[in-house]
């Protein structure tokens, strides 16, 4: 049990930190609910993985890749906002998942499962998280600038379409690995809540990104420790811990004024 908790803590903190960092850009990209939509998009893949006994993140990534490609294509064709297009695609995916998801596997698919994580999975996930962190760090400034003004970013040399595509792919990968610990239902919270917490506590971009990452990691650690004590699914506990941190941040923000 101790080894399970330890492995879960490592993988949870890595995913939480990178999700928090990634989510800190969602405010500027108007994609706050995108993580949730993408989470739902993973469900057919998770269902297949549970049915045929292969890695849930792999199944999730398979369907996310297809889904993101469809969203990107529709965005180019229709000029509708990605969030609206994601809503269309994720509803279809969610409905499809429930067509063949076995009832006994529903809880795992929706809420995640950290009880069977191997050291190899932890190592691969941590490496993926480090890679995601590096990629987003390299395009963070142009992404913030394009959130202020796409024209300003472009006249200063930013390739907006390329950066947006990279960001969307990184979000999709984060969701795919996040599904393992919080399930397909709550990935939005994993991405969005730490950023909201950080916004309450920071007065600059650097502080904001650091706090967002730390808040994501702490929420995962607290949720996993609570799972160790109570045996309740870690997914909901992680999100509750994240909400508690957010509420505490409101108190500290009000106190700081």
């Amino acid at each position, binding site marked *: 049990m101790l080894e399970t908790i330890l492995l879960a803590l490592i993988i949870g903190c890595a995913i939480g930190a990178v999700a928090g960092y990634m989510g*800190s*850009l969602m*405010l*500027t990209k*108007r994609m706050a609910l995108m993580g949730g939509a993408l989470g739902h998009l993973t469900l057919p893949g998770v269902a297949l993985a549970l049915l045929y006994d292969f890695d849930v993140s792999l199944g999730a990534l398979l369907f996310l890749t297809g889904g993101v490609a469809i969203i990107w294509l529709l965005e180019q064709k229709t000029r509708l906002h990605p969030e609206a297009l994601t809503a269309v695609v994720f509803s279809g995916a969610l409905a499809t998942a429930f067509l063949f998801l076995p009832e006994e596997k529903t809880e795992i698919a929706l809420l995640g499962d950290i009880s069977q994580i191997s050291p190899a999975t932890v190592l691969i996930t941590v490496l993926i998280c480090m890679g995601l962190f590096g990629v987003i760090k390299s395009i963070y*400034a142009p992404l*913030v*600038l394009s*959130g*202020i*003004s796409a*024209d*300003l970013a*472009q*006249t*200063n040399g930013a390739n907006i379409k390329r950066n947006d595509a990279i960001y969307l792919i990184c979000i999709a990968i984060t969701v795919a690995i996040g599904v393992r610990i919080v399930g397909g239902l709550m990935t939005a919270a994993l991405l969005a809540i730490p*950023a909201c917490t950080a*916004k309450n506590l*920071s*007065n*600059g*971009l*650097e*502080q*904001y*990104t650091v706090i967002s990452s730390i808040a994501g990691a702490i929420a995962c650690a607290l949720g996993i420790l609570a799972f160790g004590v109570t045996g309740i699914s870690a997914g909901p506990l992680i999100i509750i811990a994240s909400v508690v941190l957010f509420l505490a941040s409101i108190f500290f923000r009000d106190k700081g004024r």
Partner: protein
Amino acid sequence: MNDNNKVLEVNDLRVAYNGTTVIEGLSFAVKRRDILVILGPNGAGKTTLLRSLLNLLPYQGDITWHAGKIGYVPPQELLRRQDIPPLKLSEFFAFKTSDREKIEAMLCAVGLDVRCLQRQFNELSTGQFQRMMIAWSLLDNPDVLILDEPTSGIDIGGEETIYSLLQKFWQKQNLTILLVTHDLHVVWEYATQVLCLNRQEMCMGEPDEVLTPEQLKRLYGSGIKFYQHRHG
């Protein structure tokens, strides 16, 4: 016009959105150190023209720049100041350069206190914000500065400050300015050239020569009142 003296040449420009032509058959040239004011009614294609010149929109025809760096100050309504991450002005300037001395010198040049670097991006007044944006766009010493309605939402005093500031930089540096405004007094006061635009060129030349009452009526319709400006 001597070719070496040209900073921009536009030939037979055509821009269309979703099949609707916004600019058609527009040709003009801009000389180095010109202050070109682009005038025209709403929907005339002024912002579209600037965005095409900056290669932000697909277009047909030829746009040739004989300039190195081009600075741009977008219209206020295209700049998002809310619902963005917490961003100190020092961090916003760091997107362009890490040279703190240069940033502080530029802020002083536009009349802003260097202490404002610690302020949030969304905390400045509209006038301060526009001065900050001018400082930001001039930070890498552009050859050309393009501004789209830089004084919209600013009171008369603030408006005068912005234009005096631009004129100061124009005099000090080898700067060419392209500017969209609705304000006719800016044309009389500061422009060396004026381009009247209403989907196509209506007039182009020195303001004293081309801005006649008839021309303004043709550009804006019969509602326009004309007050002759005389230089002291």
